């Protein structure tokens, strides 16, 4: 069994589920013959034909809007936005309609769509190819926001997202697309949504992260272990609804928490996690919860973008800070 990348796991999940469920329609810019600009939909056109794998005209609001219409008819559109920076023209359709159709009609119509987009910076692409605005979606009632950080989780969470009866924003960390490989059996087994994954058990500090930042976070945990600091590492995975219980249980055990995300600091998802810990976990905190995040700036162009991204070193420093707090 050959190991596959996160990107290949996405393709594998799409192909698996399209084989099982004839209602799944893949659509977006360049998803058919080209297989997507990252090749996430590679081979689907050949396997499932041009009715089910559809190149759209270049219009993101349209992609979202027609997906909504299709979904209410019992189809399961899995729409790709080429980059997260190009999802904004579709926000009106997503916020004002996709997230609300079920509620608006008291359940008469539903909207089981998956909106996929590569997200995050660090791949030396031009402006607008580096966004991580998951917080906007996390703030929107009626949506789910799911972010995988390994090939296995990409496969299992995408299957779960497609099978979910409600709209899911599925964000794929482009920096991890081809980063590491893993054996991912193509067994159609979904992973659960709405729960965090504890990737590493530890006792001294809880590291909470998601998406591409899992890379630096896991590396930091390794480095810390060598310094004798035992970090528990949590991959949030489903950003909305948030599994705060797993995080709280961990922080109750460790007494310390560092949250890591790539998005700008202000009003990022890290703020909400920190606020919830403050509300419910103040009594067992041994140190203030720290956030290691992207800056409140626009992601710089390729030459400087590496300085935007939170580094392993910054995570280690934050952990050292919370360890030394007295």
């Amino acid at each position, binding site marked *: 069994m050959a190991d596959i990348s996160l990107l290949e796991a996405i393709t594998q999940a799409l192909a698996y589920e399209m084989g099982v469920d004839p209602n799944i329609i893949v659509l977006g810019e360049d998803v058919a013959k080209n297989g997507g600009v990252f090749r996430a939909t590679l081979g689907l056109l050949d396997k499932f034909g041009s009715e089910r794998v559809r190149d759209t*005209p270049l*219009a993101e609001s*349209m992609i979202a809007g027609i997906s909504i*219409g299709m979904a209410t*008819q019992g189809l399961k559109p899995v729409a790709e936005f080429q980059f997260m920076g190009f999802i904004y023209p579709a926000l009106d359709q997503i916020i004002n309609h996709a997230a609300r159709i*079920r509620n608006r009609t008291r359940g*008469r119509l539903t909207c089981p769509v998956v909106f996929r987009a590569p997200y995050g910076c660090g791949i030396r692409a031009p402006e607008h190819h580096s966004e991580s605005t998951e917080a906007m979606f996390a703030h929107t009632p009626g949506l789910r926001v799911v972010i995988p950080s390994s090939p296995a989780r990409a496969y299992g969470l995408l299957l779960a997202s497609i099978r979910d009866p409600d709209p899911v924003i599925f964000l794929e960390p482009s920096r991890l697309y081809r980063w590491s490989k893993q054996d991912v059996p193509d067994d159609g087994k979904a992973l659960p949504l709405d729960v965090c994954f504890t990737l590493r058990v530890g006792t001294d500090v809880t590291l909470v992260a998601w998406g591409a930042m899992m890379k630096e976070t896991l590396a930091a945990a390794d480095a810390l272990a060598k310094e004798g600091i035992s970090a528990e590492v949590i991959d949030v995975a489903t950003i909305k*609804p948030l599994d705060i219980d797993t995080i709280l249980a961990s922080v109750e055990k460790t007494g310390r928490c560092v949250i890591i995300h790539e998005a700008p600091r202000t009003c990022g998802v890290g703020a909400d996690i920190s606020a919830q810990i403050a509300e419910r976990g103040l009594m067992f905190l041994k140190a203030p919860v720290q956030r290691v995040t992207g800056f409140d700036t626009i992601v710089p162009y390729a030459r400087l973008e590496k300085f935007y991204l939170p580094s392993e070193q910054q995570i280690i420093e934050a952990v050292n800070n919370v360890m030394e707090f007295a």
Partner: protein
Amino acid sequence: MEVIARFEVPYYQYLNEESAVVAPLPEFAKDPEQLLHLYRLMVLVRTFDAKAIALQRTGKLGTYPSTRGQEAVFVGMGNALAKTDIYVPYYRDIGTLLQRGVKLSEYLLYWGGDERGNVFSADKDDFPFSVPVGSQPLHAAGIATAFKIRHQKRAVLTVTGDGGSSEGDFYEALNVAGSWQLPVVFVVSNNQWAISVPRSAQTAAQTIAQKAIAAGFSGEQVDGNDVIAVRDRVAAALQKAREKNEPTLLELVCYRHHDHTTADDATRYEPQEIREIEWKKEPVARLRRYLENNKLWTEEQDKKCHEACAAEVEEAVTEYLNTPPQPLESIFDYLYARLPDIYAEQRETLLKKEVPAHG
């Protein structure tokens, strides 16, 4: 220089302002029963509309958008739809929804501020009211895509205002419908106003119908005060959609004979003379005059018809006013198929909430 493409925009009218027949009538219009049916529906719509405004003025209904003077648009459209078609409305409509089986009391519930007004008890598939202007034609295109993928001979009908035709979504919907050859009919109810902005300021296009040219299919302008023309052209476009997967844009030219909504005051911007001139074209009197001229209708019958409509409306109002509010938990219970556990606590907080003083 050589000319490489030529386009035309046709205009359709059967009954003119004076109720004279100006073109050979379509088949259905030769059947008096069908015309009488359309007439009764228009009277019902106008009666209901007046009542809804009155309810709003007395604090029993929320903000309400009247369809006064636009009855032919909605009644004609609704009459052309097949049961298996799907309708994607905007916010201003009674006549179509009525014919889709939506109860007048549901209509009131919606404008009374109750989500259950979107449940459309008699219909499973039609879209609910849509407030964000111009956003719903994309949903229609999506539904039409589903029909096409499934090789179903069904059409989708959607309607927007003249203002709505300026939104990017409107154009994107037309463009994909043309590109994918979708079975969808886009209606623009051109009532000459988008709140205070006149049609002339909305676009420099001479007709709204010609916007279809940008998407590579045909557009028609239709006299929206002539219910026969509306019924005929919408039916023809729906048939073309069902049989040939060809989209159409229909501009129905009418006039908004009321404030934009009950929250608006059109005297601030609308010249009174214009409304008076336009009133001479209004659709109810036009059809009545035609029916009377042809001895198909009498003053006596008209009186009875109005009474019957008033009674039907009263019944709906009673039903509406007697509808108890939704339980509080309805605020949470339709958000997701299953409410995620994390929100259970908030739901509890809600259920414990006192009725606020300002309620």
